[in-house]
């Protein structure tokens, strides 16, 4: 089959590799009909996530048709059309039982690596996202092996198009969870969203769906701000205005009741790993690219929530902890418990409350994907979201 393969830092390519096979009786094989490039894939391209190996298949946002099931798969049948959460969860451990699928104890075969970093057993494995997160082959390919097939894949039984449901695999639930965990009081609370990338866009629209009185989106890329404006959000271009002043003014001096950091550490602060950890200690260097998080804390109203869907991996320095304490802020963060949102959010799509296709700017084939990785990273050509058809 064809697949997008990590070939080294700054290098992804299309390769013909063997089709995936069932490895365990609880696996299924999915023929992928649509897949997407995620902002977090850029971290892999940049080489800031440790433990990628040449030949790894990329991709964690995908959907398709079940073509093969292992003997112990009960719920899925060949022919089912499914969306697949980007995180892999076992469904039986204490965390999964509590709906904390991203904290699954059992899905990561390489639990040892994460354990060393985080002082706890590893969280859930992820598709196509380095060996530290399980080393599972990803879904920017024509087929993918899906473990725990009765737990993750969600059947789509209506005639919604792929593009309308594809983002249930990651960015829609991720934006939604970020908004939901703010505890927005409908008709009253003001929500600010740092970062107008795909997750920021869904966070802003989710805040609106959850009844936010007003939503403000902060970025510097004009077409991304325009996308947020199209949904009725106020926007602030931080390159043109002092963002903290603008936010105070927009909220009558209170600050937003809740602030969402949909930026994360991005390239610089992102890379965790012992190597960086050690380098930081040895050289006295500090990770200092947490501008969005710092702004989020400084702008947030007293008693508010700082919600962080943006990915952080390593150490953070000069975090304004005094401001967070002084204002009595609540911090919410972490990988998305995708599994628990797919059903409810699918209902919202079916009800016409949101059409997730708004975020798509580019449609392409697998062969065109390596070029689009670059376009997406450079934010050229108005690129916000790339959807790939593996069979085109």
């Amino acid at each position, binding site marked *: *089959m064809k*697949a997008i*393969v*990590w*070939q080294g830092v700054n290098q992804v390519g299309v*390769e013909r*590799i*063997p*089709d*995936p*096979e*069932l*490895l*365990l*009786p*609880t696996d299924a*094989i999915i*023929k992928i009909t649509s897949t997407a490039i995620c902002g977090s894939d850029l971290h892999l391209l940049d080489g800031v996530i440790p433990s990628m*190996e*040449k*030949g*790894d*298949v990329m991709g964690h946002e995908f959907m398709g*048709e079940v*073509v*093969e*099931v*292992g*003997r112990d798969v009960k719920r899925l049948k*060949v022919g089912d059309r499914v969306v697949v959460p980007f995180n892999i969860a*076992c469904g*039986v*451990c*204490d965390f999964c039982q509590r709906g904390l699928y991203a904290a699954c*104890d*059992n*899905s*990561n*075969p*390489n*639990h*040892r690596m994460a*354990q060393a970093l985080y002082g706890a*057993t590893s969280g859930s*494995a992820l598709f196509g996202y380095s060996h530290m997160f*399980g*080393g*599972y*082959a990803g879904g920017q390919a024509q*087929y993918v*092996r899906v*473990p*725990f097939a009765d737990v993750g894949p969600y059947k789509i039984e209506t005639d919604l198009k792929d593009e309308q449901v594809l983002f249930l695999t990651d960015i829609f639930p991720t934006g939604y969870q970020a908004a939901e965990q703010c505890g927005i009081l409908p008709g009253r609370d003001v929500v600010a969203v740092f970062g107008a990338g795909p997750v920021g866009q869904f966070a802003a629209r989710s805040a609106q769906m959850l009844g936010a009185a007003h939503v403000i989106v902060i970025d510097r890329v004009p077409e991304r701000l325009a996308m947020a404006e199209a949904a009725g959000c106020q926007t602030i271009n931080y390159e043109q205005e002092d963002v903290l002043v603008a936010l105070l003014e927009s909220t009558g001096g209170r600050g937003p009741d809740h602030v969402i950091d949909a930026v994360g550490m991005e390239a610089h602060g992102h890379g965790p790993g012992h190597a960086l950890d050690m380098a930081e200690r040895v050289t006295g260097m500090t990770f200092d690219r947490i501008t969005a998080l710092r702004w989020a804390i400084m702008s947030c109203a007293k008693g508010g929530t700082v919600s962080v869907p943006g990915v952080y991996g390593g150490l953070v320095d000069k975090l304004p902890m005094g401001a967070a304490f002084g204002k009595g802020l609540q911090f919410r963060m972490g990988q998305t418990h995708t599994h628990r949102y797919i059903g409810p959010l699918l209902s919202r799509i079916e009800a016409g409350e949101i059409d997730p296709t708004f975020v798509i700017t580019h449609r392409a084939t697998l062969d065109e994907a390596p070029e689009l990785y670059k376009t997406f990273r450079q934010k050229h050509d108005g690129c916000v979201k790339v959807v790939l058809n593996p*069979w085109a």
Partner: protein
Amino acid sequence: MNTKAVPPKKLPGTQLPGGERTALGVLGGTLMVSGLGQSGVSRLILLGLGGGLGYMAARGRNPLATALKVDQNAQGDVQVREATTIGKPVDVIYAQWRDLSGLPRIMSHLERVEVLDGRRSRWTAKAPAPMNEVSWEAEITADEPGRRLAWRSLPGSSIENSGEALFRAAPGDRGTEVIVRLTYRPPGGSFGAIAARILGEEPAQQLRDDLMRFKREQELGYNPTVNGQTSGRADAGQRKPAPAAQPEVRRDLGSETHRKGEQ
């Protein structure tokens, strides 16, 4: 049967056993003496190295072992401890451990355990070539059903070691907390323990991997794996011997699997 609880004593840092201290002191002194006879750079190096070893001997600490968190007691025994919570009842988990002959399924360094009588058993572990395996006789020193199981090698064993497993119900109906403590005397003293830690063949890591695998066997009935999956590498799709961290449980996948779609 001796049922007295003997929890391994936790000492801060790492203690060098007496024999090792003496050897280090002698080696350090020799290096310093021969350094005095040299000139230039080699004099500096030998004096420095010798002084360093002498300092280690005097302090009774191996700083490398401390940095690598190799935990040793005053007798030079390495102590390893690990805990996990398993979503199964205490009696089920305890029974798995009490069946000594089944212990090799849990602890990957063990080859087999033969039960000799109610108290004694013969344990065989994998060892590096040329030994390949080592055996010793052990006795159960405590058996409190559903709470604690302890064992130790009998005097005269080739590898002196002891261990215990504690079991207790996790709060909130979350299953069983298993705490395992192992004590052994590493071949090669603290330096052997350090070498093993660096080479990754270290019991602390092994125990962590073993307990995680045991937990998953209990909760899922198998361990997750990516061994044999597709990739852009030359070995794609080939089955590799499973490393301890991710043993492969490939049951018969059955014949009722289906496949369709283009290739």
